[in-house]
């Protein structure tokens, strides 16, 4: 039976009377902080900044492709745009924003006062942030500081031998390599921190079988990072050896293999997709039950499916390479392993549906984004299964169908769930509610824009439009589709701008949230919003998966059923 210790809402009365700190003090405070919440917020803010930058690059790409024979940007600039858009979105938007949420939420959810290694946490953030700045500094320093400089233009997967010194002179590719290397170091640091925090910092009673599913998923995702991000780091070291010291690891003229780079890149690249989508699953596991007013359906199956995805995802990478000519044996293996991963993912989808089934659903903006995620992720998974069939992939590999597929995963799946997470946890992070009215506008605009862009984008792919194409002839019949895709991008932009406006406006004018605005069940809702720097005045101890349910319903605690 749960007992309770009431804690005053405002523990520290001095701040209200203390004078406003100088901006320099505030800056110093943020730069030197080792508090997991501040680092988490910095991760999120930094990712949002790059989201706007990389989104702007996407807009330029879409303007260029909207009509045939367009010369809105030059071919060279176009190559730089898609390289920077891809690299930024994966390494400096998706990874930091997911780690930001993880950093913020994990210690709160397991009842700890900070991460296991707070200084390592700060180091990881600043290294990643420096990597992002280095990537964009290439615009000035890409040619070695004389002239205007240039950004990398080798594509986000940087296939050999295009990255060799002979084909990519100047320093733009070096900036790319170093930026990705630094981002990898930061990622390993944070992943190490998350695993150690989850294993060693749980509050009394928080057994592994009682952890919130979000924490479970971040644990699996961080373990995957060790065996996924590290190979990329190794490949970047090799690329640097090739470029700086003249080794021949990817030099085809000296007998080196370009295919080896492809393997090394995709050994990172495909599990990376699951590293990115798993946190989206994590948010769904927390948000869908709360707004369905039901405990999550099939907790052990969810954990098992997560671990299953973690394992299987390590053996699917070469489905990116069906067109290379690996031979029938390898192709067959990767077709079947790619299909196998649909099984644990399907288990998750059914569990979410079963959680919603018969629930008392509250259609908040957060829940609407979560439902959008469910449907769109399913469709994205289905086109994924289509592309996993090797003969189908021979037909449509490297076409806009592929671009549409993975944007469906990343935007329709990950970004929708991220927006959901923002609406759900923003009150905890700032103490203010996001405006629901603006939120609904954001949701519908973004939903319409998303479907206009990415549903239609499949069609030019089927008609034969290759990805990364600079422009196309008018008689191809691709124009109407590209025009629709580009106009959808504009609608999405309006939606995102509304969201950013909502974030800023609600920070000052939003309704005061209180500690527990959603009637939630996990530990982060048991402390004030925003939480004090020590998180919990007394370390909590828990007796079930939903400690706050036990507290609110002492007559019917959860551990009767677990």
């Amino acid at each position: 039976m749960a007992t309770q210790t009431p804690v005053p809402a405002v523990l520290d009365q001095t701040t209200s009377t203390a004078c406003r700190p100088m901006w320099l003090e505030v800056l110093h405070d943020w730069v030197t902080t080792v508090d997991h919440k501040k680092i988490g917020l910095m991760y999120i803010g930094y990712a949002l900044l790059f989201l706007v930058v990389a989104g702007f690059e996407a807009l330029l790409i879409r303007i260029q492709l909207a009509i045939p024979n367009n010369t809105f940007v030059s071919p060279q600039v176009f190559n730089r745009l898609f390289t920077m858009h891809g690299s930024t979105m994966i390494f400096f938007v998706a990874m930091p924003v997911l780690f930001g949420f993880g950093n913020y939420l994990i210690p709160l959810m397991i009842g700890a006062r900070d991460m296991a290694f707070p200084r390592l946490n700060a180091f990881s953030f600043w290294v990643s942030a420096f990597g992002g700045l280095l990537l964009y500094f290439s615009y000035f320093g890409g040619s070695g500081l004389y002239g205007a400089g240039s950004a990398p233009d080798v594509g986000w997967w940087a296939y050999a031998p295009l990255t060799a010194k002979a084909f990519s002179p100047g320093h733009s590719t070096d900036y790319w390599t170093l930026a990705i290397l630094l981002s990898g170091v930061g990622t390993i640091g944070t992943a190490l921190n998350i695993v150690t925090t989850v294993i060693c910092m749980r509050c009394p009673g928080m057994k592994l079988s009682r952890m919130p599913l979000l924490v479970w998923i971040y644990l699996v995702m961080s373990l995957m990072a060790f065996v996924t991000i590290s190979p990329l780091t190794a490949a970047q070291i090799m690329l640097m050896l090739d470029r700086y010291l003249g080794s021949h690891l990817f030099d085809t003229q000296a007998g080196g293999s370009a295919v080896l780079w492809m393997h090394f890149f995709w050994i990172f690249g495909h599990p990376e997709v699951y590293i990115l989508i798993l946190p989206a699953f994590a948010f769904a596991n927390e948000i869908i039950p709360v707004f369905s007013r039901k405990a999550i359906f099939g907790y052990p199956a969810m954990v098992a499916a997560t671990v299953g995805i973690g394992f299987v995802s390590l053996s699917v990478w070469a489905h990116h390479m069906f067109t290379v000519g690996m031979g029938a044996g390898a192709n067959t293996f990767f077709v079947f392993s790619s299909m196998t991963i649909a099984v644990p993912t399907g288990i998750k989808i059914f569990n979410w549906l079963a959680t919603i089934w018969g629930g008392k659903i509250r259609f908040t903006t957060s829940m609407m984004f979560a439902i959008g995620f469910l449907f769109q992720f399913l469709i994205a998974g289905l086109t994924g299964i289509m592309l996993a069939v090797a003969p189908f992939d021979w037909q449509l590999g490297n076409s806009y169908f592929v671009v549409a597929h993975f944007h469906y995963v990343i935007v329709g799946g990950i970004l929708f769930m991220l927006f959901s997470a923002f609406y759900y946890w923003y009150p905890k992070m700032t103490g203010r509610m996001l405006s629901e009215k603006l939120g609904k506008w954001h949701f519908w605009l973004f939903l319409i824009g998303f479907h206009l862009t990415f549903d239609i984008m499949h069609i030019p792919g089927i008609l034969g439009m290759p990805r990364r194409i600079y422009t196309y002839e008018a008689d191809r019949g691709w124009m109407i589709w590209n025009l629709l895709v580009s106009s959808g991008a504009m609608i999405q932009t309006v939606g995102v701008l509304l969201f950013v406006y909502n974030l800023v406006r609600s920070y000052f004018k939003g309704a005061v949230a209180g500690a527990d605005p959603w009637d939630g069940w996990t530990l982060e809702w048991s402390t004030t919003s925003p939480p004090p720097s020590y998180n919990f005045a007394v370390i909590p101890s828990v007796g079930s998966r939903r400690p706050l349910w036990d507290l609110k319903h002492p007559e019917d605690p959860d551990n009767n059923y677990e």
Partner: protein
Amino acid sequence: MSQAAVIPQNAPEVWKLPSRGIVGMACLILAEAAIFLIFVVAYVYYIGKSLSGPTPRDVLTLPIFATICLLSSSLTVHLAVSTLHGDKRRLCSLWLAATVLLGSIFLGSTALEWYHLIYHDGLSIRTNLFGSTYYSLVGLHASHVIVGLLMLTLALIFSLRGAVTTRHTERLQVLSLYWHFVDGIWVVVFLVVYVLGR
């Protein structure tokens, strides 16, 4: 929807969790092992694919003595931890010094080997694929040895100044885990470069 913060408290139970240092080091070792795996894969993949000489059979000799030194340093660092655990602090310094010495001998013999390869056999990282993979794999391992030696030397200096007590056993143990990893990787590198690759 309660507005005030209420922190749940249940009846206390026995609650013991693993140490942070050891779990953190285990994670680091996992990540480092993945980096080495990629370099080993590249080495194995390129065995016999060099377009020109020199080949491994021409120039490589088995570094038996260096290997014995490095592997026995695993034993000495273990003894350093266990003597510290038993509060024999001078013995701990002795074993740490032995570890640093054995590690330095290994590093020195690698340096000699490289000197020989570069100046007598004309094999540099630019020469052929064998040179590229050999120097990158062995160099990656050697750089890990250097990092380990720096940290062990630091521990030795602290120990000689009397600043290391039984309270620090766990920290020294974390460092020894790293050193065991570096030694274990050498077994793999040795087998791949000097046995399989020759």
